[in-house]
């Protein structure tokens, strides 16, 4: 018997804000901390914590630098992060399809 789609959900990725960070980062070469904060409407502390979790899991890479005198933090998704995001999206779609089919 095939596993239920929930078995494919990864706790690290599945959290809504972390999924948002991965989704935005996967669309670009790299994305700046301030952009993520305003797009995802998170506080700096909250966003930092989510990025730290993703970085620890090897799903994103963090790069710190300066734009003139202004410190900037850039986040880019790793190959493992892309794979994890793709797996998560597949699992989510399968769950939605299963839910729709069960109601039909």
């Amino acid at each position, binding site marked *: 018997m095939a596993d239920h789609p929930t078995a494919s959900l990864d706790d690290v990725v599945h959290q809504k804000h972390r*999924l948002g960070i991965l989704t*935005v980062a996967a*669309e*670009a070469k*790299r994305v700046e901390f301030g952009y993520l904060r305003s797009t995802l409407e998170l506080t700096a502390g909250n966003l930092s914590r989510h990025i730290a979790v993703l970085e620890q899991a090897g799903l994103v890479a963090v790069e710190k630098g300066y734009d003139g005198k202004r410190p900037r933090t850039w986040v880019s998704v790793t190959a493992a992060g892309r794979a994890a995001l793709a797996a998560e999206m597949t699992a989510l779609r399968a769950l939605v399809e299963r839910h729709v089919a069960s109601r039909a």
Partner: protein
Amino acid sequence: MADLLDDLTELRRRAREDRHAYPFPLLFFGVASFLAVPLYAPGSASHGFDVRYPVALGLYWSVVLVVGGLATVWWYRRRGARVGIETSTRGYLGALAIGLGGPVVGLALDHLPFRFYSGTGAGLILLAAATVLWRRRAPRAVTLTTAVLGTAVLQHDQPAIGPFIAIGLGLVVLAALEGSTRFTTITAGYLVALCVSAAFTPLEAVTPGTWSLGSVVVLPGSVLVVGGLRGLRRG
């Protein structure tokens, strides 16, 4: 769950929109196309693509392609730093190198022991193959070789639109990197205009003038300028 998927789709759409920077290359190459018209004054030959100052025309386009390509990369990086979301320009630099390398490889094509039945057809097939290889993440050396060969054969067979083929190659790669429907549509329109221009430019006019040869730039140049202006208007 469906709401979450919708939210993520919206995030993706917004990220793509914020990355868009395509009006600059369109306007740069569009304006440069029209500025090239005086260099299309006809030479002494009464047939084929023969201009009075071929070296000046070649030099002009080489400078435009190099400066335009590097300025485009700078523009994308500057915009990325300003907005906070950066587009990778490595693929575009590769396309630029292929477009510039095409004429060099094309010189060797003159010494081949055979001729293509249709150089245009062979070039297009090779470029289509290179696109498939790129999308399927084939080994880079194979993809690059196929793309360089395709570009060289096409530019060799269509010298009047050679620089526009290089511009088109860059736009196709940029459109794929941006993931913008509007930019992809403009690029497709540009490629169609280029084909029409190549097919109907009166190279065989009895008394060729600057505009009979120079008209080769008008259609693709117009698409670039109009596309760039539309992009600017949309922000």
